[in-house]
């Protein structure tokens, strides 16, 4: 039976879906301290796409790769709970301040280090930046084709993948040779729940630096239970040009952030007659507000 080596790219993000009034700091940047850190929602959809491949091709492996502070190890555990086989935390002070270009460079260097893969899957975009750039940039840097806006994998064999893309105007079925990078929409199937046994197995899994930090009780057991050690890579573990990393490698400069409050500018009253509602509907469709 075919087996696939899958890499899922994931990001830990502040939960911007339930923002309170203190979500933004006075200077206009995100107040990460008050927002819970979560698994980027579309990356969870991406993980589910990977898990479904593994459901069909049992010997496939899923490696979760995330770049972020040490705390991002939390989402690797979340990935383990749901069925990922391996996880790598890419963390180093040198990565701090990366924009999408520097991030995709660092990720692509890490993937080169992993070397052997058939499919890379990631969410279309992260809810803290909404750029949708990292996935495509990683594909470009690795010199492999990409399929964006994936909703479902239609078929897969060792040579080729066929994907259903969800676009604004409808769906598109495309086929592509492997290796390939796929970005996944939130219209894809939601990720399966965490599994009780896997949770109990991996709940103490962490990185070496985190273990040293906490001097945890499970240090001793983690040397006998190797699954509790999560790989932690810094710049010394990947071949990279440090000039392309972090702030130095990030051409994006934030000049100013404005707080924008959406408000209605004008209002219009209509009667609840079919005719009036019909006119309103036509106006809304013509102005592309709905449709």
């Amino acid at each position: 039976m075919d087996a696939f080596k899958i890499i899922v790219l994931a990001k830990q993000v502040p939960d911007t879906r339930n923002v309170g009034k203190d979500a933004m700091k006075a200077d206009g940047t995100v107040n990460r301290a008050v927002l819970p850190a979560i698994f980027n929602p579309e990356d969870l959809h991406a993980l589910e796409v990977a898990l479904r491949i593994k459901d069909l091709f049992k010997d496939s492996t899923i490696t979760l790769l995330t770049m972020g502070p040490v705390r991002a190890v939390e989402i690797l555990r979340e990935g383990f709970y749901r069925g990922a086989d391996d996880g790598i935390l890419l963390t180093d002070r040198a990565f701090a301040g990366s924009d999408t270009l520097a991030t995709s460079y660092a990720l692509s260097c890490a993937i080169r280090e992993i070397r052997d893969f058939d499919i890379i899957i990631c969410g279309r975009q992260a809810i803290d930046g909404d750029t949708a750039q990292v996935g495509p940039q990683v594909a470009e840097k690795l010199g492999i084709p990409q399929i964006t806006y994936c909703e479902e994998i239609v078929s897969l064999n060792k040579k080729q993948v066929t994907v259903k893309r969800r676009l604004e105007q409808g769906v598109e079925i495309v086929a592509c040779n492997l290796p390939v990078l796929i970005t996944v929409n939130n219209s894809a199937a939601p990720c399966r729940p965490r599994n009780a046994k896997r949770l109990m197995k991996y709940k103490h899994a962490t990185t070496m630096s985190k273990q040293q930090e906490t001097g945890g009780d499970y240090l001793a057991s983690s040397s006998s239970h190797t699954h509790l050690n999560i790989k932690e890579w810094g710049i010394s573990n990947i071949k990279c040009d440090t000039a392309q990393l972090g702030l130095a490698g990030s051409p994006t400069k934030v000049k100013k952030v404005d707080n924008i409050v959406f408000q209605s500018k004008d209002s219009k009253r209509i009667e609840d007659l079919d005719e009036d509602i019909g006119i309103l509907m036509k106006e809304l469709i013509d102005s592309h507000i709905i449709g």
Partner: protein
Amino acid sequence: MANFFTDNPDLKFHLNHPLMQRIVELKEDFYKDKNEFDFAPQDFEDAMDSYAQVLEIAGEICADIISPNAESVDHDGPTLKDGKVEYAKGTKENIDAIVKAGLMGISLPRKYGGLNFSIVPYVMAADIVSRADAGFANIWGLQDCAETINDYADEAQKEKYLRRVCTGDTMAMTLTEPDAGSDLQAVMLKAHFDEDRKVWLLNGVKRFITNGGGEISLVLARSEEKTQDGRGLSMFIFDRNDGGITIRRLENKLGIKGSPTCELVFKDAPAELCGQRKFGLIKYVMSLMNSARMGIIAQSVGISEAAYREAFSYAQKRIQFGKPIIEFPAIYEMLAMMKAKLTASRSLLYETARYVDIYKSLAHLSNERSLSKEEKEEMKSYQKLADMYTPLGKAITSEFCNEIAYDSLQIHGGSGFMKDYPIERIYRDARITSIYEGTTQLQVVAATRGVTTGAYLNRMKEYENVPIKPETESYRNILVHMTEQYEEAEARVVVQNAEFIDFHARRLVEMAGNIIMGYLVLMDVQRNHDYWKTLEVFLKFARSKNMQNATFIGYSNLNDLGKFKYNIAK
């Protein structure tokens, strides 16, 4: 993200009861699995952390999947296709999520693929699932039957069937027949041993079987020819894959519509004997029923929780006469009473679960090593308590559940009568709790023993001597007074003949239940003072209810039997 475990602090409160230390060390046999299974706990704290985190998974699935599916499942229901049950679409999604989350076989041993959780967290999951969808709670909760296989089947059967339960096969408890409902001694479905095929074959009809189309069933059948009573019955494990079964019809029910209730026809259906012949009813069904009753207590509490929450949120939002209706005494009085009944029910549920936990763990340990004298006594005393509290709990919490659902719908007014709000479904779902797994009337029969032997009274006297915080003494005084009143009523009834005892049994059992629940909530107040308001409300209810029952009994004598009978005669 919504979560039915984390949004309800009462659950964590009960999960963290001091008795858990003993419960967990017994269940884990002093953490002996830790080197064999990578998901087994290292110590008590680790086990408790796992319980809480796994319940969080259950809470998330309940809030995000099962509860949102409840309306469509109730509407669509299961269907019958070519003699097989097809679940509603939502039910399939629920099962898929539950299986992927590994929430089947929660209490089964790890070596068969289970989580080896103690009863308390398992019951808590049942509480949460029932709040989300009481009908689905049945399909999920029938994994209970696996407990009976684990307790009494042989090793090969355990290996074969328990593994399948842990990976998602659903079960059924196939007992009832058209002429054998409450009276299971009358079961006629025939089992005979086919000498050629060297296999037991089942022939006959079963009715009202919840999830009768499940993959694995425990079937009560008459294995002994020319017998008429319970001693001729044995228990069989039936594997649906072996064929010989047709589902003749699905009942169209008032509530729990997502759970298929089947009429089954067995025709030379091959089955395996479970345990010893002739012990089907007297031993195995009793064990099945005890855990099933515990399941219904959990279901009653879960439905009560859902009903209370619906009423609370509606009463806050609904504006009449210029203010939210929750501000009117007529409404907040009802809500407070509902909450008090819910809280007391839940305390009784987890107290009973703890008793079952300890004695069952000790019983399992006794199969592996001989118990010390203290352990044997411990097992006996907890088993006695479990046997006392289970019928009491089933009777009281299921009746409370119906009352709470009734009041919740009432608070919704006309809207509650429409299909637009969940309470309409919850109200219908609540109705079965006081009927199945033994009606309230039959629970009272079982609980009456606790009245006549003085066991409930002794328990109340024990509670009188538990050290409590001085500021809560006044509550205990109320309970002591209620106990005296109960003692008086009991004495008046128990000296008379058996019919007179049965005539007043429900009143006495209710009185005992109210006092015991009062004490349990008083104990809750010791651990968390925030429960004092609920205790006050509950005591107001309990005291007046007991007064009513005491008055009835106080003005009653043997002549009543004739008068009541005469009154209904033609």
